[in-house]
């Protein structure tokens, strides 16, 4: 690479892990805004079923003729909301953006092991998203069989149009992007650590990204394979997921010999680990942020690190807890209930260890810390509500109701996204050399925290009351009409929650150019990325890096300052 690469080479087709990380960051945030706007349309329909929304007639003349939503369009909205948020929002944000940006900087490496593969990973992610989204502009509209795409609904031309085919194709492309990224992370963490950076001196965020990469590498090929089978069922008339004797629109279909539930096993074999792919990195960021702002070593470093690995390992054995009522042998339900209960133990260990980190600290309530504390508080609810649906009999009532919608949003928004906000606000000064506006950051946190709870907490009540998810007009059911008022309140809060995110976007771009200069180490933190300039130059480190102590040496007795960098020798016992 020349010393002065042109704009395109430097910012577009770069192989620098930092540029690729920021590319993933900004594009995933853009996709999340899109996914959020789809959710707003759903909230409109749920709060005011069948009421016209005049301006939507121009934007989606077929989905909302006269501004009134049709059922097919509602199905597309929740399908694409889930798909965008999971595949093109949270996973690329947590894994693509932070994995790329942080791994080399935090382990003392000049770049990723395979920089070109890294760039390819990003440049497969963008087309994948465009292919999936293209469904909105094709005949019959976008995929509408849910982000879980259960066949036969998703597999038949009679029930789903070309948009579903594009969805499948796009997810296959995305799968390769994820696999390339995972190979890269694993190779980098195993081989490019600076001298002295032993595994037990790695920041917890790197432990979690490493575990995530292993999950991605082992699980994504299964997703890709099952998507290929679904594509064959859709396009070439095979019957992997299609049994004999189906009658659709009065005609007996020619398919025979397949098994609809097979898809669910394959899909959840990827998608349950994917839930951990979406939460473990955030757990890592929070584990980096808490000690920094509590000025205290993390409580139980090894317990937190190995609990994360355990969550990843057991996470491969819990997939069929999504299928307790799906028609599999009830004895299998028992097996998966046991493994699911087991996974709650390491999760609890982490939460208690974070509390232990705060105990007798000296807590600085800056914006990243607020988001990290918000993460603990909200992820706790996500975790605890998981125990209800882990219990097979209670799941008979709660499965596929709003209780599950609430549960997943407390995990993925309350958990993953608050963790991501903590991460963005924490590493923003390193990425762009400037501080984010603190005041605006705090206002954004409090609005998000309060409104999020007003939107999501009532979902538990709706679910327990028997309201199924993915319902275009729940007032069809006499027994659910009394939930209309509460849905209106949720919708209003959702509009406020969405609007609050533009405060964050404004703060992000304003601070990028006009924020206060950050300096190398604005948070007085200890890990390697804070030893280099902000933003770090190409190649990251000016000279050889040697690591002498653990990642969280705060408030070491006898030390001159209350933080000891990993490049310094610690006077304490944190080796």
């Amino acid at each position, binding site marked *: 690479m020349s010393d002065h690469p042109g704009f395109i080479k430097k910012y577009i087709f770069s192989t620098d892990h930092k540029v690729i990380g920021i590319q993933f960051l900004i594009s995933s945030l853009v996709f999340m805004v899109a996914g959020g706007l789809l959710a707003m349309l759903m909230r409109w329909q749920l709060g005011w079923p069948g009421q016209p929304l005049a301006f939507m007639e121009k934007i989606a003349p077929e989905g909302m003729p006269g501004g009134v939503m049709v059922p097919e369009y509602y199905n597309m909205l929740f399908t694409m909301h889930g798909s965008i948020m999971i595949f093109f929002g949270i996973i690329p944000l947590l894994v693509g953006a932070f994995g790329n940006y942080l791994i080399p900087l935090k382990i003392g490496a000049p770049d990723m092991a395979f920089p070109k593969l890294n760039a390819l990973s990003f440049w497969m992610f963008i087309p994948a998203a465009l292919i999936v989204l293209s469904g909105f502009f094709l005949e019959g509209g976008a995929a509408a069989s849910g982000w879980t795409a259960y066949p036969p609904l998703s597999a038949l031309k009679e029930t789903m149009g070309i948009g579903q085919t594009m969805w499948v194709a796009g997810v296959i492309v995305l799968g390769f992007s994820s696999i390339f990224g995972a190979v890269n992370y694993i190779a980098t963490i195993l081989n490019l650590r600076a001298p002295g950076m032993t595994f037990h001196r790695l920041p917890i965020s790197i432990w979690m990204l490493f575990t995530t990469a292993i999950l991605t590498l082992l699980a994504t090929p299964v997703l890709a394979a099952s998507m290929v089978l679904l594509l064959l069922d859709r396009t070439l008339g095979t019957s992997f997921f299609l049994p004999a004797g189906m009658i659709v629109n009065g005609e007996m279909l020619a398919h025979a010999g397949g098994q609809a539930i097979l898809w669910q096993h394959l899909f959840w074999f990827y998608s349950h680990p994917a839930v951990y792919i979406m939460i473990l990195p955030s757990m890592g960021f929070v584990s980096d942020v808490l000690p920094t702002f509590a000025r205290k070593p993390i409580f139980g470093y090894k317990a937190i690190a190995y609990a994360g690995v355990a969550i990843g390992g057991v996470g491969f054995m819990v997939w069929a807890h999504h299928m307790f009522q799906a028609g599999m042998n009830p004895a299998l339900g028992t097996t998966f209930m046991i493994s699911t209960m087991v996974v709650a*133990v390491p999760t609890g260990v982490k939460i208690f260890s974070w509390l232990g980190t705060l105990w*007798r600290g000296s*807590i600085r*309530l800056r914006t990243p810390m607020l988001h990290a504390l918000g993460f603990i508080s909200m992820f706790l*609810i996500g975790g605890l509500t998981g125990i209800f649906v882990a219990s097979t009999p209670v799941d008979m*009532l709660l*499965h596929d109701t709003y209780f599950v919608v609430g549960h997943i949003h407390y995990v993925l928004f309350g958990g993953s996204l608050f963790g991501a906000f903590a991460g963005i606000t924490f590493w923003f000064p390193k990425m762009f050399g400037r501080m984010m506006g603190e005041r605006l950051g705090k206002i954004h946190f409090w609005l998000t925290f309060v409104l999020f709870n007003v939107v999501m907490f009532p979902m538990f009540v709706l679910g*327990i009351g028997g309201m199924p998810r993915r319902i275009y007009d729940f007032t069809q059911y006499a027994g659910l009409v009394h939930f209309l008022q509460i849905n209106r309140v949720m919708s209003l809060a959702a509009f406020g929650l969405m609007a609050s995110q533009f405060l964050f976007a404004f703060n992000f771009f304003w601070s990028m150019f006009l924020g206060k200069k950050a300096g190398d180490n604005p948070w007085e933190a200890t890990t390697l990325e804070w030893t280099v300039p902000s933003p770090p130059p190409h190649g990251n480190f000016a000279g050889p890096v040697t690591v002498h102590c653990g990642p969280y040496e705060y408030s070491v007795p006898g030390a001159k300052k209350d933080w000891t960098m990993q490049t310094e020798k610690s006077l304490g016992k944190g080796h």
Partner: protein
Amino acid sequence: MLLPESASTYAPRVDQLFWIILGITGFFFFLVQACLLLFILKYRDRPGQKASYVHGSTLVEIVWTVIPALILVGLTIASQKVWAEIRYPSLAPATSLQVEILAEQFAWNVRYPGPDGQFETPDDISTINQLHLPVGTPVKIHLRSKDVIHSFFVPEFRMKQDAVPGLPQQIWVEASKAGQFEIRCAELCGLGHYRMKGFVTTEPLAEFQAWLTETKANE
């Protein structure tokens, strides 16, 4: 409060588990949130506040691993007992009453075998979206699907079971009180999913028998 009314013999057993889990998770919810709030208030970085240099405590870590593990073992055993009772075919109550529910986009086809106890015979009794069940007698339900996956969900029974094409399911229910309840499809099945609604009427055995006779006469 919170839960829908209960109208099957196993609903109270499910509800009991629900309340136990709510109690336990509620306790940990308040415990953790209270500690969080307390620590934030107590250990703010006021002048003179100094953080302790502590890396952990093996004893404390063992305690907060083992106690939740024991609680979860208890919950698993309690859940398994109820699950087996409701779902294991070997433990299903013996009964001669049967009904077949064939789900399709977007309706519930209900069929009773009639006096001969056999399906596919001339004395079968068929309805659409109207399921009648006697109170106090277990009924075996044969659940099938004609096209895509649907899910038979009656909140008041605390029963949900997917209807899967090519994979017939058997469940049972014993209604515990008379009334009318909704069948809500709980698995996305296409554009009419939201209106795939049926009704369950639970009534005394004599009325149920009379309804069967009357329905047959009107066919």
